[in-house]
């Protein structure tokens, strides 16, 4: 069946889905994979901004679905990677303009030419999320180490399981190890304890992420950034490499134990 469709989802908004999608796309491309990223957040597009491709948009996802554009016409090639493409969301329409069946049809076509099709799911549990979930082979759930984000992630995971797309894998984004140490933030173990999903990435809080997003050059391209390295590791785990979790802390205890916990399962 060719390429693999990976949907990035979260439930709650603002936890870093789009940032994760952009960075994963770039990391996978830099690992030599052919990648297309789809912004499924119709009406509120921003994946193009984070990837620095905003001014190149001519056609969008709705144009493809409604037949105004050929698939190839709407795909925007990344400035740096020849094998990385973006299909942007429409800004003028809403989520009802696309159906889950449209997404399956679209991704089936893309699978033939690409190794990975990444779908940036909108927040929420409604139509837009269904659109992003329906074609998925694998779902990555992005959450922050805070109670409300974990609660929403739990809800989403339940829906993913109900749709037989489960269980999915977890990306814990914006972890501040100094706050965890003081007991002010949930640790990755706390999150694992509630959600019970395999963790595929732990991304540390990093100011470089914001400046990178604003400038349209995702943080993975910055070798100085710990978050960038962490996203790179996620991409390598997605393609099946066994990458140890980074040490985000002077105290190696907790992450080592977490890795042990995951391997034990």
């Amino acid at each position, binding site marked *: 069946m060719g390429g693999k469709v990976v949907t990035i989802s979260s439930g709650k908004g603002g936890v870093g889905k789009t940032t994760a999608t952009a960075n994963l796309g770039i990391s996978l491309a830099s690992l030599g994979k052919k990648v297309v990223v789809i912004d499924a957040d119709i009406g509120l597009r921003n994946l193009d901004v984070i990837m620095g491709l905003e001014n190149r948009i001519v056609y969008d996802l709705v144009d493809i679905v409604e037949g105004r554009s050929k698939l190839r016409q709407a795909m925007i090639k990344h400035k740096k990677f020849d094998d990385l493409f973006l299909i942007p969301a429409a800004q003028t329409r809403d989520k009802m303009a696309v159906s889950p069946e449209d997404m399956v049809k679209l991704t089936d076509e893309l699978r033939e030419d690409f190794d990975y099709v990444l779908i940036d799911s909108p927040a929420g549990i409604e139509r837009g999320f269904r659109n992003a979930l329906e074609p998925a082979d694998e779902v990555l759930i992005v959450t922050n180490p805070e109670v409300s984000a974990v609660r929403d992630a*739990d*809800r989403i995971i339940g829906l993913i399981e109900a749709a037989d797309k489960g269980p999915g894998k977890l990306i814990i984004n914006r972890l501040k190890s100094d706050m965890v140490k003081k007991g002010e933030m949930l640790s990755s173990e706390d999150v694992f304890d509630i959600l019970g999903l395999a963790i595929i990435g732990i991304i540390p809080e990093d100011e470089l992420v914001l400046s990178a997003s604003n400038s349209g050059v995702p943080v993975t391209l910055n070798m100085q950034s710990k978050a960038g390295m962490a996203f790179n590791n996620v991409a390598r785990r997605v393609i099946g490499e066994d990458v140890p979790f980074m040490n985000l802390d002077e105290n190696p205890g907790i992450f080592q134990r977490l890795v042990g916990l995951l391997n034990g399962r």
Partner: protein
Amino acid sequence: MQEELVAIKGLNDGLLISLSATESWQSVTDQLAARIDEKAQFYAGANITVELGERPVPKYELSSLKALLERRGLTLSLVRSGSSTTQISAASLDVATDNHHAAPIAPEPARQETATVNPEETGTQGVLFRRTLRSGRTIHSEGHVIVFGDVNPGAKVIAAGDIVVWGKLRGYVHAGAGGDESAIVCALEMSPSQLRIAECVFRSPPGRRKKIMPEVALVRDNQIIVESRE
């Protein structure tokens, strides 16, 4: 007027209460409570014999009946029943049983039409969930609920009977939702966001528990207490 689901008459040593064997347990007990409350003074202190006919009455239903009578100052001293389920329930509640049918209520023709409903349905059945209940999931059951997995924050379990969680209980649970104070909740880790049994409410104390162990929640003196099982 409501149908006659309940007959009360005097015996030498107390009162004989005959309950319809076919109507729903809820409506029968509701009417019984109403009938007693009409003449509370008159009935107070009496010894009660209950005639249940062929209805299989599970323990939690019989125990809620007993509690219903006791709240009104009546003592349940004898259960007459032709059902072995009921007799076992009575025995486990230390109530004497007698399988002679003294005076069963003859079902009236009009009522027989509704008698096609299998009385077992209101009874002891339970449901088993072999997965973690995640946020947003709600389970309602007329019987017991067993969850083989966790009950996460934001998930809800409401059961007329008992609730058993073979995992971490962190969501909302309501056992004995029909008013049965003998219902219990047990879990390998007892940290519910809210736990109710019948009318009683319990909230986990804030902060982290140091020791995690299997625990059982039950009602004693109108309060929920949580006991560890060692």
